[in-house]
C-alpha cells in the first residue's frame, strides 16, 4: 500500500514537486547536468527532514495524496520534458487534459456542497463509474492511445488493491494538484507530446 509506506509516499511527493518544477521552469533549455542537479536537489529537499519533519510531510499536508493518474502523468511528463523520452502522444495529452477537467467539474463543486447530490459518494461503490472507465479505456485502446489506456487500467486496479488510504475511486482518478498541473501544461505550449517512442502505433 503506497500510503502505508512512508518512503513510497515520500517519492510520490517528489514526483509532484518535480512535475511542478517541470511545468513552471523551462528546464529543457538548460544543460542536462544542470537539470540532473536540480532534480537531485529537489528530491533531497523533499525527502530529507526540514526542522521536525521531512519536506514531503508539508507537501502532503497541502495537496493530499497523488492520484494514480497523476503519478503516471508526472513520470511521463518528467521524462518527456527533461530526457526527451516520450510516453504519450500529443493527442493523448489533449484528451487527458479534457478528461481531468471534465472529471473535476463533475466532482469538486458537488463534493463541496453545491447541491444535495454528492458525486464523491458515487466513487465508493458505483459499478457505473467502473463501467464508464472501461468504455473509455477500450476507446483509448482502439485509438492506440496506449499510455492513457494503461493509466486508467492501473487506476482501477490500484483502487481494487486499495493502494491509497482512500477507498474512493475518485481519489485514484484525479486530485486537485493534477488539475493544477494540467492547467499549467495548457499554458506552456512546450509541454506537448510528440511521437510515442514506446508504443509507436
Amino acid at each position, binding site marked *: 500500500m503506497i500510503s502505508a509506506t512512508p518512503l513510497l509516499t515520500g517519492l510520490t511527493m517528489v514526483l509532484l514537486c518535480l512535475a511542478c518544477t517541470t511545468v513552471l521552469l523551462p528546464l529543457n533549455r538548460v544543460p542536462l547536468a544542470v537539470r540532473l542537479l536540480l532534480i537531485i536537489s529537489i528530491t533531497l529537499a523533499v525527502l530529507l527532514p526540514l526542522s521536525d519533519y521531512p519536506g514531503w510531510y508539508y507537501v502532503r*499536508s497541502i495537496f*493530499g495524496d497523488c492520484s494514480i493518474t497523476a503519478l503516471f502523468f508526472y513520470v511521463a511528463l518528467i521524462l518527456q520534458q527533461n530526457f526527451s523520452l516520450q510516453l504519450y502522444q500529443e493527442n493523448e495529452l489533449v484528451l487527458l487534459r479534457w478528461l481531468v477537467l471534465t472529471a473535476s467539474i463533475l466532482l469538486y463543486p458537488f463534493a*463541496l*456542497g453545491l447541491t*444535495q447530490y454528492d458525486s464523491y459518494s458515487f466513487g465508493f*461503490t458505483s459499478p457505473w463509474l467502473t463501467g464508464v472507465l472501461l468504455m473509455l479505456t477500450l476507446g483509448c485502446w482502439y485509438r492506440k492511445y496506449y499510455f492513457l489506456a494503461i493509466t486508467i487500467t492501473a487506476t482501477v486496479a490500484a483502487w481494487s488493491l486499495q493502494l491509497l*488510504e*482512500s477507498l474512493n475511486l475518485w*481519489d485514484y482518478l484525479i486530485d486537485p494538484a493534477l488539475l493544477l498541473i494540467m492547467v499549467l501544461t495548457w499554458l506552456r505550449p512546450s509541454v506537448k507530446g510528440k511521437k510515442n517512442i514506446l508504443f509507436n502505433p
Partner: protein
Amino acid sequence: MTAIRLGVLLVIASGFTLAISTLPAVQEPAFVVPEYSADSQDSGPVLEEAFISGDLTSEVHSATAIELNNGDIRVFWYGGKREGSKDTSIYSRVLKRADNSWSDIDETMTRQTVARDTHRYIRKLGNPVALVKGDEIWLFFVSVSVGGWAGSSTNLSVSRDNGATWGPVKRLISSPFMNISTLVKNAPLLTENGDVVLPAYHEFLGKFAELLQLDSSGNVLNKYRISHGREAIQPTLLPVDTTHAIAFMRNTSASQPGKLWFSRSQEQLADWTPLEALALPNPDAAVSAAQLNTPEELLLVYNDHPSERDDISMAYRPGNDAAWQLLHQFEKKTSTKKEHNPYSYPFLLQTHDGNFHLFYTWKRKHIKHVYFNRATLLDMLSSARPKS
C-alpha cells in the same frame, strides 16, 4: 494485430477483471438503537456540578464523553494557550464509578503524535468525539495542517485498554478536495454489522452536515449528505429505529439564522427531509441531545437565544410533533459585562443506568461537568414550561 496492441488489451482485461471482481458492496447502515433503564428513580434527586479540566492549559473547549464498559465515564476535550494555538492537545480523564472520583488528566493526543503517525505536518488539534465499540474506544478528532478550521481533517485512534494507551492515528479520507474540511462534534452511532456512522460536517466553501460510514478498520465506506449549501453544521444524530434517524443541526445560515435546524432520514440514509427550523433558537452554536424512554422522547441541551451563547439550557420533547418545553437552565449570564460566547459546546451523555452527565465549555477556561439523575429530571419535568 501487433504484439503491443494485444499486450495492452491483455493488461486492460486483467486490470478491469480485478476491479469488477472486487467491486465493494456497501450495506446501508442498520443502527443499533440503545436502550436505557431508569433504575435510579428510587434514589433522591441529585445534581452535582464541577470544573473538571484542571489548569494545564489556559483555554479548553469541546468536551465529549463515553461510558466505559465498567461504568466509568471518560471525558475528552482539547486545550492549549488558545483555540487554534500550536500547543493544543487532546486531554482526557476518567470519572470512576466506584468512588465517584476523577483520575489525573492525561494528554491523550499531541500534534506531534498525529504528525508522526499520519506522515503530515499538523498545526493544531480540535474537536474530539468518542465511541465504545466492544472492548475498544474509538477516538475521532479534528486536526488542521494549513489555514483555519475549514482546512480540517478527521483522524481516528483506537484504544484497547480503556484509554490507557492509544494505537496509531489513522487519517480518514472523506473529501476529494485535498481531503480538507471534514470535522466532527457529536457522537457516532454503531450499526448492527459493526460499522460506525460518524456525524460530520464540512465548512470550507459549503457549510453542510453529512454522515460517514466506516468499516471495522475505520475506513470510510460511504458518505450520506444531510444538507447542502451554507446552512447547517454539527449534526447531532439519533437513531429512531434500525433504518431511520433524526438530526439536529447548528444554524449557520445567513438568510435564515437564529433557529435550530432539524431533519429526518427517509427511506434511505442518503435521503433526508429539507431542513426544518424548529421553535428552539440557535445562535450558530452546537447542541447535544439524548433519547429517553422512546426514540422520539428527547432531551436537548442548547443555547436558548437566537444570537448569543449566554446560557446553557435543556429542553424536553415528549414525542414526535409535540411541543418543546424548557426544563432547566444550567447557566445564565447575569452580568452586563460583554463576554464572547461564555457557554458553549454542550455534550449530553446518558449512562446505561438512565442518569445524565452534561459537559460544556465554561468561558473557554473550564470544562464544566453537571451530573443529574432521573429523579432530578422528573423534578425538572414537573416544572417544565412550554417554549413559545
